[in-house]
């Protein structure tokens, strides 16, 4: 019975934490995408801005492409990955705790003997 109550608590935690994180992660990803769309440089009056190399160099196209790749979310920050890890950790902890501490008997103050 204790085990099932523990399991219920864990399920509730998983249900609460993972969707909450998933929503936040989605919002964060949308924010990154929005930032990418608004990419550019705002210069105040008097500021200098220098480009290195030839402005006509086609290599700059590759650089922009590379920066876009760098800004994409790595797998370990992906919602699906974190949710899976969270579930595995909690499930593992639950199983470990259950088998490591299960005390089905005795319950209360008992005296017993076996005549076999």
């Amino acid at each position, binding site marked *: 019975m*204790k085990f099932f*109550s*523990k399991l219920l*608590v*864990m399920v509730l*935690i998983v249900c*609460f*934490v993972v969707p909450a*994180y998933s929503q*936040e*992660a989605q919002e*964060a990803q949308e924010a990154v995408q929005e930032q990418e769309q608004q990419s550019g440089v705002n210069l105040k009056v008097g500021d200098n801005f220098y480009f290195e190399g030839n402005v006509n160099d086609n290599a700059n196209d590759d650089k922009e492409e590379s920066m876009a790749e760098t800004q994409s979310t790595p797998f370990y920050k992906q919602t699906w990955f*974190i949710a899976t890890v*969270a579930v595995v*950790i*909690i499930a593992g*902890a*639950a199983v470990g*705790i259950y088998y490591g*501490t*299960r*005390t089905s*008997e*005795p*319950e*209360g*103050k*008992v*005296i*017993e*003997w*076996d*005549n*076999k």
Partner: protein
Amino acid sequence: MKRLLFLSLAFALAFLFVACDSGNTGDFKITLKLPVDDGACQDYDEDEDGEDGTDYTYCINKNDQVLLSIYSKSEIKDDYVYADRKLIRVNSNSGGKEEFIRSLKKGTYYRFFVEVTNKNEKLKLTGGIDGVYYDDKNNYDVDIFLAAVGDFVRVVSDRQRADENSLESYFDTDGSKGSAAVALKDGSIYMAGGYGFDDDNVMNKAALFNMKELKRKDVSKLKAPLYDHIAALLDDGTEKGKVVVGLGMTEDDVLNESVWVYDPDSDKYETLDFGAQPMTKARAITIDGSVYIVGGCTDSGASKVVYKVSAGENGVYVETFANLNEGRCNHALADVSDVTVDENGVKTVTPKLLVIGGSTNYKPEGKETPVTGANFAELVTKGSSKPLDVADRNGVDDSNLKVTGLISPAAVSVVMDDKEENETVVALVGGYLRNGDSDDASWVTNPSLFVFSANGEDALTYDSNSSPNECSRPSAALLGSEDKSVLKYVAVNCGSKEIDRTARYASDQIVFVLQVKRVKDSDLGLEVFSSSVKDTLMDENRDRDSDAVISDGPVAVDGLGQVFMLGGKYVYQVGSYAVP
């Protein structure tokens, strides 16, 4: 957000661990461990009980009763007081399980004592455990080994596989001589040293037997290998107490002068430096928490000094309690103290020690010089020791004890409380004596059982009976018995009959129980004391199945009056008759 997530996870895990810990709700499980038997318990038929010759003493069968008595105390220094009792009627031959109490009190020390009676209310098995500290934050799983009352059984944790699960000492089948043991306040047993015949060497090993789990744990070794040394409990107010251990021999003819105090909590020995001479075969006894070390043989003779070792606020200290009239070793020693209790329940102990027999040197067995004459028996009180004349009921020393002497007997003080006024007597068993005066006189093992009682202020009267078992170097202890019982019991670890122990003359572990009582002597027309060997379930008082032998071994008696026998390969227990 990421931090919040991980905090949530950590919180969840912490919560789970707390939830998991809530499984420790103070559950308390007592498992009764039954002695080894022939597996007949399940074949029990109440209609044929005893008729087919099968002995069900070692079983808990249908229609038996299990009585669990619970005692408690809140402070370690207090005495146990009765708390509760549970009577269980057994309705199955296969086993049973019952709740014995609704709740136990947190922060309390408990003592549990179990008595099993058959349908005719004959007491079959007893066992108990002392000093269990209960805290409702933990779960408890405690074993109680049930021994046959007034008989001895090998302690086994699982009787289905008794050979592998018997509680073993550190000696093997060839046995030992000269080891020492003592029960601590929490019921565990400390054993140290001894000469092992397996490898023919003196041992520095020491072990603690946990009687709650029926396990042995080797602990810190003695500072030197020892045999024929002393070991006695020093009550310093702690949960387990301490052990005063030392003197004896480190090897043949090399005497030891060191005495140590062993602390079972820290598993360390501290040297007790009080200027003792190197000596062996001294005797030690615990009276009112202090240890008295009496005599001991030196290179040149024997010590007369009686040391008192006590625990005070500033640690352990030693003082000279008295001096014997005649120095000796290998003697019998019994506690015959005066104990009074005032109207407020305050107990006062006036220490008195009875010293009987012994020798004035430690020559090989059978070549010693026994203590004879007027100083055969001495009564030691603080600051003095006086000789006591010994004679039988006719006023003569018919057993010639003052002439032959008596070396290496065991003595146990027994309080006979069956009458209005308590009378302390001393049961004496075994030892060996010299027949003749010359150096080549023959030596014989004492064939008699004696009971000494006071005859005025300056004399002892003895009653004697013949003994079916002769023991050259026994050790003995009083078994717990009911108050006001007309019968009192002394458990004896007999060892070998052979006087010479320089060679391997060891025999099977022989244990028997003496029954001490008053009887009417029709010839004399008066009441005398009788000491006799009680009938046993074991074949000639031997454990023939053990395949282990013993020359001599120690006994240890715990706070429940249960006696443990050591020195062989296994540990044996004699069940007491009631909580003393």
